[in-house]
């Protein structure tokens, strides 16, 4: 079984993406069940890999039996299985939420079974692309998966009609530019070293260290992936994309898309290219840009009056924090970055499912639309509150622990960059306090309408969110809490792998 899992993990979503529209066209009613089953199976595969990687060490899988450096290899260590688990898990929730339908905008095309099937297929394709990025050990293959996932994402973003098509087009522009830059970089690398396999690449890099083209390659790769990871100031595509994507897709895209790119950055810059001078400089720059992003994202989130747009800017802040961790590269920092990926993915997914649903049902995105929700739907709102508190970094939610690791890493790193990162993370927490509590206050303690003192309890209690959104919201909130409480085992799972991984690569370097 262990031998089959890696293949299943990548193949299942890709096959499923083709299968589900077919099922939708033929059987109609079973689309939902089929998609959910597929997602569950993918998740099970990810979980299996996660356990076996934890129990028996990293797994190397040669696609089609062709071993590296010529064949395409998949590589599952603690790091990649963790991200895979995250992607697959979020995809389950997103698939569940897809029942809600994309039609929040009146200009969106009417939902038909086939259309639903196609969208579900797109989600599966997206998942497949992302899992491919996570798993692959081949830099060109990575580009392929990057493009697969991007194309699927454009589809999902545009499915809302109206403004979302514009947003999708803009995303497409940025994404294509990013992909092209990355591809150029890979081209340079191949020209220099003659290999695309990461391990092979790492081994051969020292011999071409002196070549100026290497610097160009590193920068191209870094810039390309940074656009995808929304590193400030290359984040321009993000706010509109997150805001105008239909809710079920937004919950998924906002949660994992940028993070997988950040993971790729970590793999390439932090592991494969870490030994190069250019890589080190780029990582240092990345810390500073991360600091700027953390602050700018926070400030601009405070300035927003629309909840989803505020969440989008908060994501830019969070991505800055993750990239700070990637840039620092110490074991603590990597732990913090990974933990923040997980914490932020769970919490932001929860919030986008919730905020999107409320925006659709309350017919507006302003903070005032949240007024009075506390008395009508206390449990849903409690879940959203947990997620918001995690974003602020209040213990014992997951966000607290990721911030804790990142702060520790900043102090341990020391120097101007360390101090700046420390201050920026604290500041972003403060800003997050401001913009999240504004919403929570309205939701829990204010009453809707112009008379704030009116009796809010007269409105009948009932669910605000339909079940397809409420279940992911509550489930993710629970996960946020659990991740926080079981932070320590998590760290134990990831760190040794990372350390041995980097140690292995530096040992292979002559």
């Amino acid at each position, binding site marked *: 079984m262990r031998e089959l899992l890696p293949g299943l993990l990548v193949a299942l979503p890709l096959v499923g993406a083709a299968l589900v529209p077919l099922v939708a066209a033929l059987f109609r009613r079973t689309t939902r069940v089929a998609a959910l089953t597929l997602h569950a199976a993918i998740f099970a595969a990810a979980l299996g890999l996660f356990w076996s990687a934890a129990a028996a060490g990293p797994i190397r899988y040669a696609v089609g039996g062709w071993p590296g450096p010529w064949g395409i290899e998949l590589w599952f260590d603690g790091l990649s299985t963790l991200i895979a688990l995250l992607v697959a898990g979020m995809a389950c929730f997103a698939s569940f939420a897809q029942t809600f339908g994309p039609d929040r905008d009146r200009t969106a095309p009417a939902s038909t079974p086939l259309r639903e099937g196609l969208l579900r297929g797109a989600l599966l394709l997206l998942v497949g692309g992302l899992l491919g990025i996570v798993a692959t050990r081949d830099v060109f293959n990575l580009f392929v998966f990057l493009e697969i996932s991007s194309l699927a994402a454009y589809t999902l973003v545009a499915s809302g009609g109206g403004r979302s098509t514009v947003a999708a087009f803009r995303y497409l522009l940025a994404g294509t530019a990013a992909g092209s830059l990355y591809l150029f970089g890979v081209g340079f690398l191949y020209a220099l070293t003659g290999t695309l396999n990461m391990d092979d690449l790492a081994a051969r890099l020292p011999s071409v260290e002196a070549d100026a083209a290497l610097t160009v390659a590193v920068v191209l790769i870094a810039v390309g992936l940074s656009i995808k990871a929304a590193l400030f100031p290359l984040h321009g595509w993000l706010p509109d994309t997150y805001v105008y994507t239909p809710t079920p897709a937004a919950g998924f895209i906002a949660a994992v898309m940028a993070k997988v790119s950040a993971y790729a950055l970590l793999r390439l810059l932090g592991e494969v290219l870490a030994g190069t001078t250019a890589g080190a400089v780029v990582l240092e720059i990345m810390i500073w840009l991360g600091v700027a992003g953390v602050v700018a994202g926070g400030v601009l989130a405070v300035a927003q009056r629309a909840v989803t747009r505020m969440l989008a800017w908060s994501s830019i802040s969070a991505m800055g924090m993750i990239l700070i961790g990637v840039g620092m590269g110490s074991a*603590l920092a990597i732990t913090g970055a990974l933990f923040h990926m997980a914490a932020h993915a769970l919490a932001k997914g929860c919030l986008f499912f919730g905020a999107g649903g409320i925006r659709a049902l309350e017919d507006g995105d302003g903070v005032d639309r949240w007024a009075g929700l506390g008395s009508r739907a206390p449990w849903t709102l409690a879940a959203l509150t947990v997620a918001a508190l995690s974003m602020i970094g*209040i213990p014992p939610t997951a966000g607290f*622990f990721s911030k804790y690791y990142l702060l520790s890493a900043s102090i341990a790193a020391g120097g101007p960059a360390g101090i700046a990162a420390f201050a920026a993370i604290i500041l972003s927490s403060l800003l997050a*306090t401001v913009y999240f509590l504004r919403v929570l206050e309205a939701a829990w303690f204010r009453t809707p309408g112009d008379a704030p003192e009116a009796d809010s309890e007269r409105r009948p209690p009932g669910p605000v969110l339909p079940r397809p959104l409420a279940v992911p919201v509550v489930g993710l909130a629970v996960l946020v809490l659990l991740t926080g409480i079981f932070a*320590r085992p998590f760290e134990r799972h990831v760190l040794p792998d990372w350390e041995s991984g980097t140690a292995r690569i530096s040992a292979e370097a002559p």
Partner: protein
Amino acid sequence: MTDIVSLRPLLAVGAGLAVVLPILLSGRRPALREAWTFVAGAVQLGAALSMLPAAFAGAAHVSPALPLLPGMPLQFRADPLGLLFLTLSSVLWLATSSYSVGYLRSLGLKHQTGYFAAFAAAVAAAAGVALAANLVTFLICYEVLTLATWPLVVHKRTSGVLGSGRSYLAYTLIAGQLLLGAVVWAGTLVPGAQFTPGGFLAGAASDGVLRVLFVLLLVGVGSKAAVFPLHGWLPAAMVAPTPVSALLHAVAVVKAGAFGVLRLTGWVFGPDLMHDLGLSLPLAALAAGTILMASLRALGEDHFKRRLAYSTVSQLSYIVLGGAIGTPLALAGAAFHIVAHGFLKITLFFCAGSVYAATGREHISQLSGLGRAMPFTFAAFGVGALGMAGIPMLPGFISKWNLALGALDDHQVWVVALLVVSGLLNLAYYLPILRIAVFEPGDDRRVREPSAWLVAPPVFAALAAIVLGLNPDAGARFWFLAESAAQSVAAHAPEFLTGGLP
């Protein structure tokens, strides 16, 4: 001091937390809902009392360490200072709960279920603050405390009240984030950041770094302790229902802040390091300034609860002052003041709440004649007021007296002057309340004592205060706990701090 690994500390912290959900679920049945509160209070008190004998014997119950962060487990440890605070908060929680029942019912307030749930969570968090064995555990409980009390503060939910709630959160959460930074920093310098009598930071970093760290930590805990100029939220938070204010002042938020300052000065930095870094005197001066400013401010305040709030600002800086001086007697006095102020201030707030429940009056100048109409309430108020002023035979005197002697051990004569001036100001702003209420003729003959739910708690607290004043070692032996906490710190203090005792 030997450690006994047991689950009792977890029980004490978890009791309140465990009933939050049951309370929320039994919102339709008030009797059951409130029963949960009392059950949790009793369990917490029982757990606290069961850990006392060990403390008397010089041992401490320690919970198993829950791995949480590298080198920093979630752990609770019932040392004397923590037990003192825990026992106090469980006793006063029970009193406040019964008072809350009467208060909410007699005023017919809404959102009672959320109220009781948040109350339980807040007390659990306070218990966690009390028993936290290291900085991270402390921080976690501290943040939970902030959030759990927010719904209580904005209970009325008018826009003005929400504004006050925002101000409350602004102060406490910003401080919380600074505290987070400082805790991380301290944890990096000394892995574990375990509270150690006499401090653990000595020699861990350069003097400059330690000073910065101290300021960060102080802002973190000091804003909850309402040290000037971080006190602005406290009077604003007076918009809360009275039992909440009582809890805020006597047990949970402000007291937790003051407790935090004691932990900071005695168990994180330690008196000798504070002296070496030149931090004792500035902190003492800050406390002194707070004491005087807040007292003067209280003198000019006519709103009943706000005057009490400024009194709290002033009184809690006694604790900060004791922590700053750091001699054994001063620390013991400061630790005992946690208890003394707890019983006295809760009495005062209960009385203010009873007046509001019975008459709807909120201003001191409107109290004429109420002393005769509500004799028990105002008798209790008298005890509280005099105790606050440090009148002997009441517990406030014992803390003040030991603070004075402790300051003299360190040759800080000005502290004595400060204490007596503060006592004077206390009388100057408390006794007019009694004068107006008891001795001025009233106009409303229909006023009566409110229900027994509202009369019994203040009378109980006042009687407890009298007992403590006559014998501070009565019952839970608060004085013994305060003294042994101070002694444990002093055991590490340099000689010049322990000399000079008669």
